[in-house]
């Protein structure tokens, strides 16, 4: 499984009004790219356009893969809300996508993935009988079961408490190795911790953020991580006050 690089260029429109103009993002293959930006700027829209999902905004421009092949059949997405089926067990939630396609279910692989995310005993639990962190880990197992080269993450960890978030983040980093991951987040800490590359998205385009030289996932408590986090927070504030002026 090798994730291709993705290039997004052009202008994002909502109806007639441009949301982001002069976009030119080169998301590296097999790496974690983090997108930051003010609420409403169009991050989710970008992700939906990459995934080929129906979207209120449209891009006048191009989304292409480094290897020249189609994106849509190779992509999967995980959102803030876990989007689990409330009537299905953890196991059935993990395998729902293959059943939706009419493809045979691989129960052993599903069980192995649930074990990897630390839920081996809870295969038969319904989502209502699990904690938020456990539900999000089921969603992660479902994403992994899909085994796609491109994984889009729209604030998937934001509803979790700090400790659970770190453990789910680490799991995701481990299990999504060699895939192209695009992560949207509002949390500068998360961005610095997980990014191989990060961009600040604004209505006038994107600017790349400075990251520590160490490899991700970075230690959240390390001095250079904290310094980079502070710098990023400063940059985010600057954009917000700059827009308000």
């Amino acid at each position, binding site marked *: 499984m090798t994730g291709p690089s993705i290039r997004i260029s052009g202008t994002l429109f909502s109806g007639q009004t441009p949301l982001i103009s002069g976009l030119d993002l080169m998301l590296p293959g097999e790496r974690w790219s983090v997108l930051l930006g003010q609420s409403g700027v169009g991050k989710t829209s970008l992700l939906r356009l990459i995934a080929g999902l129906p979207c209120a905004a449209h891009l006048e421009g191009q989304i292409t893969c480094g290897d020249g092949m189609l994106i849509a059949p190779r992509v999967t*997405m995980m959102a803030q*809300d876990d*989007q689990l089926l409330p*009537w299905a067990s953890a196991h059935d939630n993990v395998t*729902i996508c293959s*059943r*939706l*396609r009419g493809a045979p279910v691989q129960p052993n692989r599903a069980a192995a993935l649930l074990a990897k995310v630390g839920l081996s005993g809870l295969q038969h639990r*319904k989502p209502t*009988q699990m904690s938020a962190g456990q539900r999000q880990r089921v969603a992660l197992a479902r994403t992994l079961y899909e085994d796609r080269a491109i994984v889009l993450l729209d604030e998937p960890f934001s509803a979790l408490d700090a400790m659970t978030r770190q453990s789910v983040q680490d799991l995701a980093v481990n299990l999504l190795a060699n895939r192209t991951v695009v992560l949207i987040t509002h949390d500068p800490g998360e961005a610095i911790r997980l990014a191989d590359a990060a961009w600040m998205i604004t209505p006038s385009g994107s600017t790349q953020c400075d990251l520590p030289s160490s490899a991700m996932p970075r230690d959240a408590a390390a001095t250079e991580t904290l310094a980079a986090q502070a710098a990023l927070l400063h940059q985010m504030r600057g954009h917000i006050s700059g827009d308000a002026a």
Partner: protein
Amino acid sequence: MRRLLRGITAFIVALLVWQAIVSLSGVPRFILPGPAVVAQALWENAALIRDNAFWSAGNLAVGLGIGIILGVETALLLALSRRARWLLRPMLVAAQAVPVFALAPVITLWLGYGMPSKIVTIALVTYFPIASAMFDRLMALPAGLIDLSHLSGASRWHETLLLRLPYAVPGLLSGLRLAVVYAPLAVLIGEWVGSSQGLGHLILMSNGRGQTGLMFAALIVLACLSLCLWLAVEALSRAATGRLYGDRSSFD
């Protein structure tokens, strides 16, 4: 057990209040008979009431069954096919605004005084709430699950079967709750329009002959029938919700 006890208590209190009203107001027994008089009428006409009750209950069961099956099928068909939606959805909406009960005389005119006209009336009256409640829920699949289906490359058929159908179960249940309220009314109206059998017929006939005790007895049997139906749907609803969403059923 607790619920049963509460039900019995409420029943006894109702009987006492009824008796108190009769004794205190001194209303003549041909206007409002007391519980004792009604119990006596129930006892003396047991066979008559039983036969008529069976007839009505049979119609009710068959009519409701047809209403449920056709309602569910219509809802699924509409969810599956854009063309069917285009054609049939306005009818479904219009049927909610029009009192379907008003069709009872027409149905009796076409189908006669026997069972078929009663069954069709009941089926018609239960069909619409079930079809529309279930259809609304089939079409209300949350955006996140629609995305999931999209990303998996699901066909409309698989999406409907695996996502929309289980999601629509609460809709079916709320339609069913409405249907069991309407169904006994449809029994009454169907029989009042024209019938030689059934509890509705018995109520009308005993009223005409001044047999108020018998009339109340038939009324009470009909009320019990409705109550049982309602309790059955409640039990089904609890069981289904528990099975679908696990013990902590907070989902809606």
